[in-house]
């Protein structure tokens, strides 16, 4: 058990004991190798199961709207940005959430590891991290990788791994282990293609979408009570999983979460059919930053991107 973990358990227990929160949302050990699972509990005994490790993947803020506050929540940098964004959108009151900030060293992308070692995650014996080196033990062999090879892309481009908004920061504000360019390399690669090929690429990707809506369900920014895909009068898109409608669904979703998407990368991780969704959301984040200098989840007092304006904003595209 690491320092942060033991501190977290003590603090979480105290919060529950002192009645400061109704529930704690954190991570517990998962039932599979290298996984954690969200722990949502009001029972102080459960706090002994809280963990912090390189596999705390979920953006836990997605659960906030389900629990009556105040709630204590374990938050990595991205989770905290989501919380800020939810506050901006009036989905959450600041006083209803007690942020237990985790200076996040980055989450390991198991798909990348699988690819690097050519084995499935359950065939890997161990993954250990020592600063910038990661050792993967597989088939009686130790393979060494640099951290940038195995971190999730969203972690690589994360500018605030330690939450900026918190009630308690468990640990030191840490150094950014990032490689923004690397994390956006797929976007650059797509941009270098002619438009028709880009469209063809996404058409292929969305041909295998099964409309499980995991991307939407894991997304804290997708907080609409009723999503447009579920409207029936009028029916905006067909419920049939055709690539056309799958693509319209996702494109619309990405536009709808513009300025709310904090690049936590959960949509891509959740996708069971490996659609590189972060290459859509990541691009939208860039657009928003480029056009409006806006970074989602960085200022809880700022108005949400889409409700604000500057009269002199660029409008060269308007006749």
């Amino acid at each position, binding site marked *: 058990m690491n320092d942060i973990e033991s501190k977290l358990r003590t603090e979480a227990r105290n919060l529950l004991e002192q009645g400061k929160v109704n529930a704690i949302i954190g991570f517990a050990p998962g039932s599979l190798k290298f996984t954690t699972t*969200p722990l949502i509990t009001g029972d102080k005994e459960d706090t002994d199961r809280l963990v912090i490790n390189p596999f705390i993947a979920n953006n836990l803020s997605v659960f906030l709207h389900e629990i009556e506050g105040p709630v204590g929540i374990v938050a990595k940098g991205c989770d905290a940005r989501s919380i800020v964004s939810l506050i901006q959108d009036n989905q959450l009151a600041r006083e209803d959430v007690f942020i237990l900030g985790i200076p996040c060293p980055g989450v390991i992308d198991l798909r990348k590891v699988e690819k690097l070692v050519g084995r499935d995650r359950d065939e890997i014996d161990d993954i250990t991290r020592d600063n910038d080196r990661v050792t993967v033990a597989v088939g009686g062999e130790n393979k060494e990788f640099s951290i940038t090879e195995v971190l999730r892309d969203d972690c690589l481009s994360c500018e605030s791994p330690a939450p900026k908004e918190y009630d308690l920061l468990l640990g030191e504000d840490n150094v950014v282990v990032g490689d923004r360019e690397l994390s956006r390399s797929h976007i650059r690669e797509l941009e270098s293609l002619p438009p028709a090929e880009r469209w063809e690429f996404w058409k*292929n990707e969305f041909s*295998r979408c099964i409309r*499980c809506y995991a991307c939407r369900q894991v997304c804290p920014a997708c907080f609409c009570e009723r999503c447009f895909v579920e409207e029936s009068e009028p029916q905006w898109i067909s419920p049939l999983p055709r690539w056309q409608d799958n693509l319209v669904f996702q494109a619309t979703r990405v536009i709808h979460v513009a300025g709310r998407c904090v690049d936590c990368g959960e949509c891509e991780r959740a996708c069971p059919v490996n659609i590189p969704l972060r290459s859509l959301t990541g691009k939208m984040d860039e657009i928003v930053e480029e056009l409006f200098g806006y970074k989602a989840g960085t200022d809880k007092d700022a108005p949400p991107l889409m409700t604000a304006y500057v009269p002199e904003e660029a409008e060269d595209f308007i006749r």
Partner: protein
Amino acid sequence: MYRRKRKILSGDNMKKIKKKDIGKLLSKWQADFTVFTPSRATGVARMEEWDGKDTDFLTWYRNTVIPPKNNILPNMEAMFRFQKDEAGYQLEPVTPEQKQIIFGIRPCDARALTIIDMVFKDTYEDRYYLTRRQNTVLVGLGCTNPYESCFCTSLGIHPAQSADVDLMLTDIGNELLIEEITDKGKELLGKSSGLTDASSNDEDSAKQSRETAYQKVTRKLDTTGIADKLQASFEDKDFWEKVAAKCITCGICTFLCPTCYCFDINDEISKGSGARFRNWDSCSFSLYTKMPAENPREEKWQRVRQKVCHKYEFYPRLFDTIACTGCGRCIRFCPVNWDITQTLESVPEHSAV
């Protein structure tokens, strides 16, 4: 617990084939059938039409992400087409005529089809499903390397043996041992080439291979009395709320489940002609049961309860079998690691109703 009687096969009609000859065999079958094999060509592992070359799956394939139910109950299928003319609406049913082979189906997924056969045969026969099913030959391939999430043995399924397929293959190193399971399989074997007779040594190594696979399934679930336990806990809202707390109600577990068969029916139309389709639906979605004024399963704990109870309580009561084969997909692909075995193990003991 539901079990099919296994046909006892005498050793002398066992055949085998060299792995390197599989391509030739599949090509031969392609003359009469559309052949589906495990494939990652589309970016996700599923049963795809064989490209005529690639037999790499023999090395990488453990199981598909999209279950082979997709080849019998596709995630979207046209049921009939309609057109309007002066005489009114004309309907033209779509009949699935393609004769197909699913090569490499795992015993868990083959059992899943046996299980959902029951609902599609029940009371009213579902022509679409049953025709596809009749037109399909299942060539099973025993597991050698089950996943950590697999728990088939707890559901009475052997990872490398199956009575739910037509032909069963067992990996014996450089070769695959072939067992005839049904007449359909026998017929297909008659159309095959490159087979040689298996020796008793081959059978021994097959036995060994099966045994090893069986031992590798380490996740266990005790299903004794589970239906009664679930029934007694049906109204235990606290329990279900706790179990459901981390569920994000996406459709992964149900869509990727080989025994989840629920569907929706939708029309498409353009310029007076169109078609009626059915597509997968999921009890995880709140819209699934929504009625204008009410929704019996509005809350997510009710939907999680439905999913669990349907598989482990209702289906056994209706058809005498648990509607789960322990394939582990719902655990493996769940974004929040919601684990059905943990849920079932934590069902509280209530006094029987």
